[in-house]
């Protein structure tokens, strides 16, 4: 456990020092800070515009950070040969992979926490009467984006044990797009009574295997307040369970591949 924690801490430190990540974060923060400017332009639906825009910025920035951060983690260690100094110590490969992953998620969490803090601050300045309940409601969006990005980081981590960073960037980005866009489509196909059996089965299989990023987009009722949500707590617990299962599956896959890889 200590080995995992040590690797994770080092990974967080490395991530925070990486200029490319800081630039992405800075751009995200800049968009969050200028977001209230949109309110001046939008006399109507100003709340919806502010929240939809800022949550969108956090999600987009989070996705870019998650991919850029993770795709380089293992290939860089191999390329710089620093991996040998780690693996020659009593550190197992699975501990190395887990340490790297938790480090990446930790760094991602810190960056998303910063953006969420700025979002809440901006919102409080714009709406001084907003209570803690309202702020908590808004913060719920970024919390689930963080879980969504943790899955994305696991996807990128899994690819990073066998693919080069550039290939991994497009692969992970593609999986994110497909998992966000096509999960509902495959679900619809799987439920379509008019389709042939094999097509439905294929759709069900793809829907089951693909990471379903779409279901972490829970911002709609935050933006359009007043919507009644059914079984809300159960749904959130389910989302957490899904993330744990999916991440566990990906990390085990990554460990098994990494174990067999010549390094």
């Amino acid at each position, binding site marked *: 456990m200590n080995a995992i924690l040590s690797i994770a801490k080092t990974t967080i430190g490395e991530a925070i020092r990486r200029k490319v990540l800081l630039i992405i974060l800075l751009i995200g923060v800049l968009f969050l800070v200028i977001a209230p400017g*949109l309110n001046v*332009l939008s006399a*109507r639906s100003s709340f919806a515009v502010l929240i939809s825009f800022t949550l969108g910025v956090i999600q987009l920035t989070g996705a870019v950070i998650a991919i850029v951060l993770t795709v380089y983690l293992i290939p860089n260690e191999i390329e710089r040969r620093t991996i040998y100094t780690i693996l020659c110590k009593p550190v197992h490969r699975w501990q190395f992979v887990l340490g790297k992953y938790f480090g990446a998620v930790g760094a991602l969490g810190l960056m998303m926490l910063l953006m969420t803090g700025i979002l809440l601050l901006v919102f409080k300045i714009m709406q001084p009467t907003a209570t803690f309940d309202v702020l908590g409601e808004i913060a719920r969006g970024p919390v689930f984006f963080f879980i969504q990005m943790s899955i994305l980081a696991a996807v990128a981590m899994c690819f990073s044990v066998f693919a080069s960073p550039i290939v991994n960037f497009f692969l992970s980005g593609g999986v994110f797009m497909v998992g966000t866009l096509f999960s509902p489509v495959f679900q619809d196909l799987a439920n379509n009574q008019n389709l042939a059996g094999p097509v439905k089965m294929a759709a069900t299989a793809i829907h089951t295997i693909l990471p379903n990023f779409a279901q972490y987009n829970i911002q*709609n009722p935050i933006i359009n307040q007043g919507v009644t949500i059914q079984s809300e707590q159960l749904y959130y617990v389910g*989302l957490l369970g899904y993330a744990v299962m999916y991440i566990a599956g990906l990390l085990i896959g990554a460990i098994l591949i990494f174990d067999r890889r010549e390094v």
Partner: protein
Amino acid sequence: MKLKSPVALGILALAVLGQGGINRALFPLWEKNFSPRKGDLRGLSGDQLLVALAGFREMIAGILWVRADTYFDQGNYDAILPIIRLVTMLDPRQIDVYATGMWHIGYNFTDEQSRSDRRYIPSALALGSEGARNNDYTYELFFETGWLWYHKIDDNYGKAVEWWKEAQEREDMQTARKNILTMALLRDGKLEEGLALYNTLLTDAEKKMADATNQDFQIRQNRDTLESNMDNLLVRMAQRGYFARKGGYEKEWKYDTDPPYDVGFSAQVVVEDRKILRVEGTWNVQPVGTRIRIVLRDAMDVNDPGFVAAGMDWDSKSTVDLDPEKDVTFMQDGLFVKNQAFYRRIDMSRDPTMYPFTKEKYFVEFYYNPRSAPPHIQDRFGFSGEGMGDKNYLNTEIREGQRVVYARLELTRDQILRQGEWASKTPVIRTVNFVPTGTSSQQEVFEVPGLRGAAAAPGQPGQ
């Protein structure tokens, strides 16, 4: 500790099965509660589509709505239409966008004389209907769609009743807005249902007042308003002879609506110039402020089921189509009555897209429905026109259960465009009973009859 492959594979299999099961269980919940719902995204450009589909639909919708606001401020109303459609496609839960969009489509496209383009109304209603379906957890879009029927169309109150009854079923309906359903019921001729609703609302308001720990002003005001409205309605129903007619003893007493009053409607339309009409006529009612509806529209078979006298099939669109039918001409205006006559110059020459005049023949319709009249006029004309008459143009057929005034004249395209044989002749069409009123040369004098006899001289106290 080395991770053993069989154990790892076992955990992997469990994780894959577990996530698959959870995914299948969660997805319906997400679709029901959190999905922006399925929208037709064909109107989006490639880049918008990409970002929208990548899970940023709400964000794009917000940015587009900001753009729409800029266009509102610039008065560029045409540019707002596609944005409204895009935003509602991307995020069909933006109630404000639906409501603002309906209002914008229904009210803001006007000609140079501020007459709105009513060809857009079916689209506005379709947008409201779509919004209500997509947001059926709240009363808001049911109310807004009903309001379009009640206020803008201002004729078919039965439709407003239907929508507001749906709104009333939602728990979040504001108390003050609940009262308005009674107004629609009364205008729809459903007096007893309106009275019963007043009664229910009053009972609720009294209960609310009794339960309230503090005597909130609004709660008290709402209760008092309901009681006052109910009292007024009961008095009106009695004085207008409703109860007597229902009981079959209307002959025993003279009610305010007896005998039907002849409004003496007559009208003349002169095509002064190309697409410019001068309309004048008589309306034998003293109080100032009556508006008689005039409609100029493409002629059609009056026996066609789609024909609506002095209106159109407002509910004709089931999908939102923001392009009105470009070859249809439909002009509607209100003729303001003063000193028992009306006069108006209608200039359609500066709005060729709104008035394309592509057909050969046109109807000019005059229409007055007492159900749209203010209460002091209804005191004489009755709830549904039972106290109103007209020797020539009283009509009991075009609106079921109502007595309205309706006259239809015809013009040809050549007459309106002053072309062909009408290039040098002035077309004039009139009702059989028309006598010149001289209203066009009359000064802006309002003769308001005093309640106690002769009008007071300027500077003198009333008699």
